């Protein structure tokens, strides 16, 4: 009997394998992709409920007791990310049905999507630092495959920058993992959390933690490590951009939360001012970048950078309230960002270009699309009662409680510029008169609108249901910072050292 935590990994992996083998049978490949994703979504929702009632879920790969084997574990944060990953993959697949070229489908588009979901899900479920590295590798390679799928020149250029800069992040991760093994003699997160709090060389551990900060900061696209993101996100097909936009950088944020929440919890208090500084700079630089753009996807890509700063702010506030707000903000942002890419992408798909200058007239021609855009973009800006407001309010409240005035001011101020560049898209794509005669262009069908509509509905639900969402993210934050509980759940009541000593003797 396998433990349930393996299911969301096995299903997409097998799905990817089978879909690769029968890659020419379009219908079946689509069915497999859809089924695997639906399974993961259902599992994710089940896991959300299970963790709320039964707490952290833990199992050991191949049955080796922790800390010797590889631990799989899921807490509130993992469950949120797992469910959102599946949701995002699901809408992406739905959107792909109507937008992806058939030849890309034949060249393993859906298997790569499933492998990406596999990699992300694994990253959210592992309790082992090196194993996390492996999952990052999988999702890096899968995402590189998706970025370059289609083989256009722009894609290859973007893909090159994407892969080289991300490999640098991976390198830092790998070096950090080696160093942490050197210092603490283990790779299991629970075991590390237990040991690193007793290591006598705090500044050395801080230096090692620095490698992880750079590694995950690079994956999360924090300043000044974000260059790969705006360089590559506008090049692949719209569906891929939408999925990446919502998901990839947040895996980096997840890793920051996970690793600095427990493993380097003591270092977090040291590094918090640095993280807040980086968060503020990221918010500002990202939004400035967005203002300079004149292409829908490029604007949105820079906004990812800006908003990742808010999530880093949640970590930098170094406490349950801040982290809870950060998680809430991240969950909102994952949904809304992908929605925006899908809506902007639908407009791009219909118009045939994403250059603002050559677009227009969408408010009259596609009012449903316009309404979706308004809702999603105001949610992004943080206009209440849409979902973005609550994450931002939580961050501001936590910042005020910590008397971190500067970051509070930056977080509030950046919203205004976010609004500004969202209005730019609204003005140019929706309100402006059409650039050219649009009567021959296709109309948006249900297939094009439904994926974004699903996400917008989720965003609205997260706003109106902010109370349970916040309760859940608070629980998730408490779990993510609960070193004692982690060690107990993974290694037993006596701790990991006790297990190890028993074996060594």
């Amino acid at each position, binding site marked *: 009997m396998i433990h349930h935590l393996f299911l969301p990994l096995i299903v997409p992996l097998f799905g990817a394998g089978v879909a690769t083998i029968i890659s020419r049978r379009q219908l079946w490949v689509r069915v497999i992709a859809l089924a695997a994703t639906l399974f993961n979504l259902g599992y994710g929702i089940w896991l959300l409920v299970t963790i709320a009632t039964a707490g952290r879920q833990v199992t050991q790969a191949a049955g080796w007791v922790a800390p010797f084997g590889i631990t799989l574990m899921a807490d509130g944060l993992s469950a949120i990310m797992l469910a959102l990953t599946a949701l995002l993959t699901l809408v992406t697949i739905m959107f792909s049905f109507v937008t992806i070229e058939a*030849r890309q489908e034949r060249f393993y588009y859906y298997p790569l999507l499933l492998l990406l979901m596999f990699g992300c899900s694994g990253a959210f479920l592992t309790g082992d630092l090196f194993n996390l590295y492996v999952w990052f590798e*999988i999702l890096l390679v899968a995402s590189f495959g998706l970025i370059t*799928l289609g*083989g256009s020149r722009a894609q290859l250029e973007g893909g090159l920058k994407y892969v080289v*800069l991300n490999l640098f992040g991976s390198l830092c991760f790998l*070096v950090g993992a080696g160093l942490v093994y050197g210092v603490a003699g283990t790779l299991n997160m629970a075991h590390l959390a237990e040991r690193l709090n007793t290591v006598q060389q705090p500044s050395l551990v801080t230096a090692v933690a*620095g490698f992880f900060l750079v590694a995950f900061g690079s994956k999360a696209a924090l300043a000044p490590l974000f260059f790969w993101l705006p360089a590559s996100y506008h090049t692949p097909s719209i569906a891929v951009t939408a999925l990446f936009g919502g998901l990839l950088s947040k895996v980096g944020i997840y890793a920051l939360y996970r690793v600095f929440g427990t493993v380097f919890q003591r270092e977090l208090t040291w590094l918090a001012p640095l993280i807040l500084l980086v968060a503020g700079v990221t918010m500002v630089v990202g939004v400035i970048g967005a203002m300079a753009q004149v292409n829908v996807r490029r604007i949105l890509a820079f906004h990812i950078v800006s908003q990742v700063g808010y999530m880093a702010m949640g970590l930098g506030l170094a406490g349950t309230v801040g982290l809870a707000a950060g998680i809430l903000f991240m969950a909102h942002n994952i949904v809304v960002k992908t929605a925006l890419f899908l809506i902007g992408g639908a407009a791009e798909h219909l118009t045939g270009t994403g250059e603002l200058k050559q677009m227009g007239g969408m408010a009259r021609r596609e009012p449903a699309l316009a309404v979706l855009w308004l809702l999603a973009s105001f949610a992004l800006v943080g206009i209440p009662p849409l979902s973005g407001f609550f994450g931002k309010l939580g961050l501001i409240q936590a910042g005020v409680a910590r008397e971190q005035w500067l970051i509070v001011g930056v977080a509030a101020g950046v919203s205004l510029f976010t609004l500004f560049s969202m209005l730019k898209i609204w003005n140019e794509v929706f309100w402006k008169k059409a650039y050219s005669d649009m009567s021959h262009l296709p109309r948006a069908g249900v297939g094009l609108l439904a994926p974004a509509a699903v996400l917008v509905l989720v965003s609205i639900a997260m706003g109106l249901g902010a109370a349970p969402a916040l309760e859940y993210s608070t629980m998730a934050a408490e779990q993510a910072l609960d070193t004692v509980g982690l060690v107990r759940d993974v290694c037993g009541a006596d701790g990991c050292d006790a297990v190890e000593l028993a074996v060594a003797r």
Partner: protein
Amino acid sequence: MLVLIVLTALLMAPLGLFARHESRPVVGWILALIPLALFVTISALAPTVLAGGRVEQAIPWVPRMGLELRFALDGLSLLFALLVSGIGTLIVLYTAYYLAGDPGMGRFYLTLFIFMGAMLGLVLADNVLTMFMFWELTSVSSYLLVGYKHDYPSARRGAQMGLLITVGGGLALLVGLVLLGNAAGSYTISEILAAGEQIKASPLYTPAMLLIFAGCFTKSAQFPFHFWLPNAMQAPTPASAYLHSATMVKAGVYLLARLHPTLSDTPLWLYTLTIVGMTTMLIGAVTANRRDDIKGLLAYSTISKLGTMVLLAGMGGPEAPAALVATILAHALYKGALFMLAGAVDHEAGTRSLSQLGGLRRAMPWTAALAILSSLSMAGVPILFGFVAKEEQLYAAVDNGLPPGFDILVLIAVVTSAVFGVLYSWRLVSGVFFGPRGSGMKEHVHEAPAGMLLGPALLTTLSVVLPLGLLPATATLLQPAVNAISNEGAKISLYLLPSQIGLPLILSMTALLIGAVLTRFEPQIVAAPSPLPPWLNGDRIYDAAVDGVLRGATIFTRTLQNGKLRSYMTWAVLTLVVVVAPPLALFGFGGLALPTLDGVEPFEFVSALLIPIGIVATLNARSRLGGIIAASFVGLMVAFIFVIYSAPDLALTQLLVEILTTVFLVLLFAVMPASFERLSSPSERSRDGLIAVVAGMVIAGVAFAASSVTQVPNISAAFRTESQSQGFGDNVVNVILVDFRGFDTLGEIVVLFTALLGIYAMLRLRPVADPTRDDEETPLQPTLPEVAALLGNGQAGQPAPREREAPVAGKGH
């Protein structure tokens, strides 16, 4: 009940969409039932409030954030709620005629109802966060209404300007409210007010208040943010009349009045509001006289009156609260009417320009009569309600709470604005309805439809009737509002003629007289230079700011995101050094012995030494092939080290990867020029070299330190004991790879599998160059530039552009 009132408007909003398919006025009559029902419901609650009671209702929402749907109806809320729903009813009716036949009418009604619900929520909220939510919602609905005619760039600009300024202020307000809530320990307004003394003693008081002021000033169009309001006149007139005159722009004043009871008696409050209010009042009054567009004139007169209200909220004194309440009511009555009448004129005559209008009293007698009466009220001419309110203002100004010297200044300012008020009222009436027939009007101008005149007629009637015998009743109605603003038991007593002739009446009459005289000099005053220096033109500053921000952002981004991978790499490596080096320096290596060469096998020594040589060789390689060989040399040495440490499977993997990489690179390089091209300058190269060396030293330092200080037992000891007994293998590395950590190995296999899929697709799936050809069969050769791009800065025969990531493009609006 209060929640129901707010939700009704919001949830009924989609009913407005019925007007999409049915644009006859009858839809308006039916839709007007919604605000009418709200008006009646609120009126039904009035007796409780008039009896000194308070209606409250609270629904928890997000308790952890202190966000609660808490509503309370007191005198101040009652006044605003009645204005919002009452004028709202008239506006809905008016719209039915004003926008008759317009296909966008459904959208207009939808937004209007959302606004109405938001505005009701704003004035009824008893929780600052709830209030803020509705505050933002009014900004957003205002945006959509101003941009209603979004085909016109001016409408888009006006809408965007209004939204940016009010949301910008709103963000300040949000932070201010959170600070206020922190200082008070609660977000409930009544509790915040109860904690007034505690808040004033808190260091958070000043920043909180300044931020809240920023929110109020932007929303209520106070100097220097006032300029968005005239630009918002791009909205269809019903929206201008409703949002930008009668209700939304008073939200800032409302909040100031709301916080007034216990937070106002500080110099900060007194001086900030007095100075800003006074400045706005004067600038608005003067500028209104320089406007040619009648909606622009009305907008500036609104700004002036909003300034008066802020002044009244700020200056203190026993009469100020009563004057504030009276001014709010008077302004809503006459300005609402005048806007709707201006819309009627625009609708019938086809222009809003004073220089093109004239002599309309014959063609539009009813409109003229109503406009004249409301303008007289605006001018503060006796027996109209505007006069009564002005009396109150002067009373308050005479008896204000300001220090000597400053109090006279305020009094003079109030009188001056009254003088200019007479003048712009005169300009409006004489310019539109008297004089010769205007030049730019439609051929045949008719009276506006009765439905359009109904609302103005009702409001004008109130302006006329209230002073004629209903003043005591009005005072009774307004007293609870005064109570809500003042905690010192201020009383409101309205009268048409004071029992004795005092200074206020004399000043009022003087103002009328001077105003009347000044009407003779209208042309000179209209042509007079602006009181503000040209650089202080809000419109121009806004445009310059938008332009400057875009330009700055473009330059900044182009410099940073410059498309050069090598520059990105420099940032990345530099970041690593900056983050890791300081703690390492703090660590300081104190007491750590330098590593000795004892026990180092010759093999290890040689291979370790060969690695740097390989790196140097790679860097110095002149040809691609040389570079590849030198680089693969490094990889082979690493594999060799694995062999030394008895990890044959790792070494094998490394060897395979190395060989594959080399083959792949050689294949690709076969189609590229054999030699490298130098793209960076020598100084850049030495800078990058320095960074690389420092980074290498930092990593080596951390690695050395990490391996020297280990005090905790390493789990590899346990692995050694376990691998034989449990894993049944002699080689620990083997057992770790396939058993203990077999899960990692599974992952790595998937990495290889995924890479295969990606590479296969990359090699076989080419972009469609020629639609007639089956692209799957396209061989590798014709896509050299792509391959070159993949591998960086090479060229494929022709001089390729140096940087292929398109630089970020220029500005756009």
